[in-house]
């Protein structure tokens, strides 16, 4: 097994302590609310003893992505692709109207996928089904929650509807994942109630360079936090626009307090293993599989490489399962105009 310098070492803090942290942060706001102040950026408090099953609690929202770790979430546009993904060992599928590569090519407004297609996928496969909503589109998110999607991606791949605000994700029972390019973006999304973070990368390019950059930026910023005095961290919290307690917790953990996946441009088993080596908890593959000419083999290979990233023998075996000739054509990000970049949406 190969050690990676990008991994903070195994957990000195338990999941329960992280959950308790968010509840404690909410207590002061709870007291203010009793006095008539209106705060909704927090989890709902739980009773000491739970006699009747309580749904949508913080533990089940933050817990859902824990069981996606070490796995691959695959973008699909129909039932056939969803079946290929499940058979290959995907931990979930993400239903879109168009793959990011096609969103990029077709232009226009990119919206949530057809509800009927999402429902059809949910009825067919047994693994979790995710879907994307436009940044700030509260109502698309309510619709997806209503039909029973397992996780919502508030995604820069679709056309944002609110330039200033993201969705207040604390108001939902369903957990959310959000993209981030740096630590400030990641912590702002967590403050808004995101249960999971992924790098933005540059979706639909088949080029993993931006995902690498974003992962290293986040890791580097966390390392800097750890070397700071409390006073400097307080200033950093103001710069990020997040509670200083959250910055302190991140420094103590040496990692984001929620599950952190890599996304944006991952196209081969080697790309997936690289992102795992860089400290990702798991992988989102967008256009990389179904824009290639060997989807079933490539899907299975990326699953194997993601699980076995620390063993070169298996990563090589995974890479052997695919053919570079059949990989999607990549796009050189330096050739994209600034307005063509998706990653700058919703910071």
């Amino acid at each position, binding site marked *: *097994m190969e050690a990676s310098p990008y991994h903070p070492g*195994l*957990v*000195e*803090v*338990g*999941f*329960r*302590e992280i*959950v308790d942290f968010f509840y404690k942060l909410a207590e002061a706001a709870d007291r203010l609310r009793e006095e008539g102040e209106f705060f909704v950026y927090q989890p709902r408090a*739980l009773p000491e*003893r*739970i*006699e*009747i*099953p*309580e*749904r*949508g*609690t913080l*533990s*089940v929202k933050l*817990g*859902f992505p*824990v*069981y*996606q*770790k*070490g*796995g691959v979430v695959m973008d699909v546009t129909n039932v056939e692709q969803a079946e290929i993904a*499940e058979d*290959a*060992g*995907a*931990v*979930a599928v993400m239903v879109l109207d168009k793959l990011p590569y096609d969103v990029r090519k077709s232009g226009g407004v990119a919206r949530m996928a057809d509800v009927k297609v999402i429902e059809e996928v*949910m009825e*067919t*496969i*047994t*693994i*979790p089904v995710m879907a994307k909503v436009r940044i700030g589109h509260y109502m698309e998110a309510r619709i997806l*929650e209503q039909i*029973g999607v*397992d*996780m919502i991606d508030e995604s820069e791949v679709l056309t944002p509807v609110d330039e200033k605000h993201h969705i207040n994700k604390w108001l939902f*029972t*369903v*957990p959310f994942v959000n993209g981030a390019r740096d630590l400030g973006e990641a912590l702002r999304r967590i403050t808004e109630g995101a249960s999971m973070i992924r790098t933005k990368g540059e979706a639909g390019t088949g080029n993993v360079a931006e995902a690498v950059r974003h992962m290293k930026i986040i890791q580097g910023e966390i390392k800097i936090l750890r070397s700071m005095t409390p006073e400097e961290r307080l200033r950093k919290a103001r710069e990020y626009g997040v509670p200083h307690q959250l910055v302190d917790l991140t420094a103590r953990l040496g990692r984001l307090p929620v599950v952190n996946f890599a996304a944006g441009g991952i196209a081969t088993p080697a790309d997936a293993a690289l992102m795992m080596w860089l400290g990702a908890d798991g992988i989102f593959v967008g256009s990389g599989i179904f824009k290639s000419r060997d989807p079933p083999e490539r899907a*299975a290979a990326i*699953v*194997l490489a993601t*699980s*076995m990233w620390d*063993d070169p023998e*298996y990563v090589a075996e995974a890479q052997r399962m695919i053919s570079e000739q059949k990989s999607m054509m990549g796009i050189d990000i330096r050739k994209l105009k600034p307005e063509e970049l998706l990653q700058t949406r919703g910071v």
Partner: protein
Amino acid sequence: MVRVGIVALQGGVSEHYYMVRRAGERIGLGVEPVLLKKPGDLRDIDAVIIPGGESTTIGIVAKRTGLLDELREAILGGLPVLSTCAGAIIMAKKLAGTRGAQPILGVMDVEVHRNYFGRQRESFEVDLNIDFLSGPPFRGVFIRAPAFTDFWGDARPAAAIEYNGRRVYVAAVERAMIATSFHPELTGDTRIHEYLLSLAKK
């Protein structure tokens, strides 16, 4: 020193890693968690944890690396096991709620129904009582959880909850095998992990 192997192909691995070490500290037993990914990793292991995740993914990759067959042999030979959620699905001899055949260990005399309670929005927390534990109720965290729908042979239910007016079994034991629908590793409560360590010491 007890060496506890954790199947580390996918899912809630680090959560179990943390909990089993905490459990060891509580009862004053040296615990060395070991990550299991391929055949050979099982050498000198005293107990095994199969974590939650997607049972299809864990099964497919474990079969591919060869861990699945070696693990089955070790468990049939009496190696103590704690399996949670997807882990419980992989342990069961019979499955319901699946789309097709999926690679499993198939070592426990139980039927497990995948996603019994529904989708993520139906995921829940509830306090419950577990037969082999004493003390206060245990907090059960159920995430797209399975349930135990049939028992035969030496397997018996170890916990049940009232759900929509029905009695649903959410834990099972058989010899040195423990299986739960819920996630003890998401609570601060190490009693189930301590129980596994007590089986490993024997």
